[in-house]
């Protein structure tokens, strides 16, 4: 096999890989978005009542519902981000062990993970924020 064929094959291989990674990434991001937003990607069609007053009330109700859905999506998204950070730190911990990082550094990573859990999952700040409900 001559060098030109190898070069063309390598370029084709790289291009196919880039397309494959891009498609996979797009699908994963789309799925993640559907997962965290509860499938709220499709905007509902504007099929409200015709009467002006009724229409205003209906629009307000719809906006409230959409705002509530957005808040829920945002809360779920925070959970996903926290999970990703914890997973990343665990992976760093695992690799750090392989390359022989000191015990102090391992403890430092553990403390960062603990702080993330305390703040985002255990809501420790709600203990001293006055008037904080659930």
């Amino acid at each position, binding site marked *: 096999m001559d060098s030109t064929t190898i070069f063309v094959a390598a370029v084709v291989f790289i291009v196919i890989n880039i397309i494959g990674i891009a498609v996979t990434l797009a699908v994963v991001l789309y799925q993640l978005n559907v997962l965290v937003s*509860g499938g709220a990607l499709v905007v509902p069609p504007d099929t409200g009542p015709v009467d002006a007053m009724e229409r205003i009330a209906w629009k307000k109700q719809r906006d409230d519902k959409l705002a*509530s859905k957005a*808040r*829920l999506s945002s*809360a*779920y998204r925070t*959970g*996903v981000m*926290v*999970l990703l950070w*914890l*997973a990343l730190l*665990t992976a760093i*911990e*695992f690799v*750090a*062990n392989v390359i022989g990082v000191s*015990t102090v550094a*391992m*403890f430092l*990573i*553990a403390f960062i*993970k*603990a702080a993330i*859990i*305390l703040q*985002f*999952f*255990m*809501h*420790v700040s*709600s*203990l001293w924020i006055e*008037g904080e*409900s*659930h």
Partner: protein
Amino acid sequence: MSTETSSLVEYREQLKNNRLGLWLFFVSEAFLFIGLLAARFYLWGDTRPDLDQNLGIIVTVILLASSFSMNRAETAIVHDDRETFLNSLLVTASLGVVFLVGVVGFEWQGHIRPQDGAFGAVLYGMTGMHALHVLSGIVFIMIVWNNGRNGHYSNERHWGVEACAIYWHYVDLVWVFFYPAIYLMGKVVH
């Protein structure tokens, strides 16, 4: 002030005390787990037994994932999404069971036995005490799930869910320190 509003104000006042009580309980529990960690560093020093690293990372990831689903359950009840709340609780409990199977069913069936000196004593002491907390957490989750199925809890009143979630995250928090102490820190002694 209506009766309902006054009852909600009372509930929120009570909520502050409940939270403080739960966190004081965690502080007392922390002494137990810190004691176990201290025993590990005193008895093992800069060494550790040869444990299955793959199993260690797998159970750790499972416990992290369970914390995520628990957080999802709590978020769902805050936003009155009952279906997600109940499903996420079941996912959390299932992941908890998988974690227990990983530790008790696989790690405990390895080459180290409880009677194998300091390695055996500390390994079984730490993982056993933690597994006991995971087990009680699973029972707690199933009680909350059953209550939720029967229509208990709302976006304004769900202290039971919050307490259960915080307890579960606490179990995860303990493992954040136990995992590196048992599986990663120190030189392997065969």
